[in-house]
């Protein structure tokens, strides 16, 4: 029964547009970072660099999808990095033994399994996702260590398909886009236009209300964490295709950046708010930022300090303009 404001100044108009499309300022920021990079290293903004940047942003964005999806429900998946690593290591070591297709399937089994365990803990035992996924991450690492002892002499080989996705290019752009574009469309569509996507937001916004509406949250959470495990597993396969060197800690270093990408992208860590499009831009921003800092000739300490400070500044500005508090 209150009256909406009738007259709107141009500034307010712009503010409103930004508020309704929070990806715009992120894209602007990305452009600014690229411009800064080009200023520091003239000529770096070329097809090859763009391709590489996208290629490395894709696995980050995929792992950050795990964070976005779980964060929408107020959760988090700290095991995603380990899951990706496990899948990557398993596929590389099994391919020489059982061939590519079988190895891919076998590599995704532990990923789904860890997702199921996470879902069981979070959905049914009501363990806090932070602690649950931390625990499964530990268990996963331990199992991987045990596993690797049995495959020391099998050598390693990346299935051709993922090598194609990871290292090939089409018109200068990385082939990883063949996997990522459908994936991103599916996630974007799924979050907006499917019942499951809506329920993720609903659970994060108010679990009690969701229960009251007849939703069995454990079903949603089980499905969610299993799905997220699968996504992390696929990310691992793609990542090992890109890096072509399986290691026992391959994707672990993507873990914290994946959380950062989701957060920079405007997903609320408390749930109920966020979008995957923001996350994708967030992943690109982090990747460009990484390049920027790598190429700056400053001490390593200063580099990390700047990395943290910039993440914080971006998120703070973003929270201001989209008025999340």
């Amino acid at each position, binding site marked *: 029964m209150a009256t909406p404001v009738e007259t709107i100044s141009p500034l307010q108009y712009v503010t409103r547009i930004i508020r309704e499309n929070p990806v715009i300022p992120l894209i602007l920021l990305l452009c600014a970072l690229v411009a800064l990079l080009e200023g520091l290293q003239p000529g*770096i903004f070329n097809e*090859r*660099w763009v391709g590489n940047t996208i290629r490395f942003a894709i696995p980050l964005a995929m792992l950050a999808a795990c964070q976005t999806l779980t964060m929408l429900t107020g959760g988090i998946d700290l095991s995603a990095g380990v899951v990706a690593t496990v899948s990557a290591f398993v596929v590389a070591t099994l391919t020489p033994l059982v061939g590519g297709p079988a190895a891919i399937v076998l590599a995704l089994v532990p990923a789904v399994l860890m997702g199921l365990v996470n879902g069981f803990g979070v959905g049914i035992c009501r363990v806090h996702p932070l602690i649950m996924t931390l625990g499964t991450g530990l268990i996963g690492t331990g199992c991987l260590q045990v596993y690797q*002892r049995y495959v020391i002499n099998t050598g390693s080989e990346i299935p051709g398909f993922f090598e194609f996705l990871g290292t090939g290019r089409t018109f200068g752009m990385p082939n990883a886009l063949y996997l990522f574009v459908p994936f991103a469309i599916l996630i974007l569509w799924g979050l907006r236009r499917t019942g499951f996507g809506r329920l993720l937001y609903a659970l994060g916004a108010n679990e009690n209300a969701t229960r009251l509406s007849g939703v069995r949250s454990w079903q949603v959470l089980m499905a969610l964490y299993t799905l997220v495990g699968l996504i992390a597993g696929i990310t691992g396969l793609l990542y090992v295709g*890109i*890096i072509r*060197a399986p290691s*026992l800690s391959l*994707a672990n270093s993507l873990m914290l950046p994946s959380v950062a990408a989701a957060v920079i992208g405007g997903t609320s860590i408390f749930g109920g708010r966020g979008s995957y499009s923001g996350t994708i831009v967030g992943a690109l921003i982090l990747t460009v930022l990484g390049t920027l800092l790598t*190429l700056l000739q400053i001490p390593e300490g200063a580099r990390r300090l700047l990395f943290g400070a910039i993440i914080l500044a971006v998120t703070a500005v973003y929270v201001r303009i989209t008025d999340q508090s």
Partner: protein
Amino acid sequence: QEYTIGVSNTVQGNGWREEMICAIKAQALDSGLVSSLNIAHRNTDAAGQLEDIRNLIQAGVDAIVVNPANPEGINAAVKEATDAGIIVVAVDQAVTEPSAYVLSNNQEEYGYLGAKWLFEQIGGEGSVVYMRGAAGASADDDRDKGFKRALAEFPGVKVAQEVFTGWQQDQGKQQILDYLATGIPFDGVWTSGIDNVIVDAFVESDAPLVPIVGADNAGFVGQLASVDGLVGAAVTNPGSIGGAGVTLALQILEGNAPADKTVLVAPELWDNVSDEGKAKIAEAQNPNLDPEWPVSVSIPDFTTYTTEEIIACKGPGE
């Protein structure tokens, strides 16, 4: 007489360390003198290693083989161990506690040897990309000293870019691709063991290859022999030093302590330019080995196990 030997290691999940553990197990089994191994193997810091060593003291082991987190941080526990009559052998890196035996890869020499070869290779003139390990790690710091020493000998050589890979394959690859994309020319790459992904990056992005220095990891040694146009050198840094540590510990337990408490294992350099280096590389090929594992799976005069035994990675009682 059968002994129990404790092991303490603070980095989990990289091929080099896994090889070290397997070498320890294989050597312990092969020696026939070890009844059981007590291994503390996890990611932790010096304080955590203090805990592990003290736990091993509690377990009453006869000797401890330790890969120290850093040369000074664990002295207290090492002293406690030697005071309790336990033989302590530090492998890979030295500890400054004088009661311990040291059987160490010479990290400073590692850095120096590769850098010197690289600078000579590019004719003492030009710029190189310097890809270090993990910031703040003492092995990285030692290698840096060696690198800087070589750099001082070649005034014509500049460091075009210094980066920390954190000993992570993905970091290293992304960093070199970024640098390649800048288009700034450079003449060589020194890596701290994140090497095969660097070669891959050159090949994938069709960049002209420059001389690359890496470690004797199976993947990189394979590339040295097979990648067209690659000029490079592998500096040995055997993970099997762990096995050598077991041998040394057993010798001491049996009463054959060496005269000098410190034994430095000098690194070798195998380049694919000289005939001698080529021969070494050809001999060292092992395509079946995990690409992160160093190919030098044994150390002459110290280890007695076979390649099959280290790959089986079985210790006494397993």
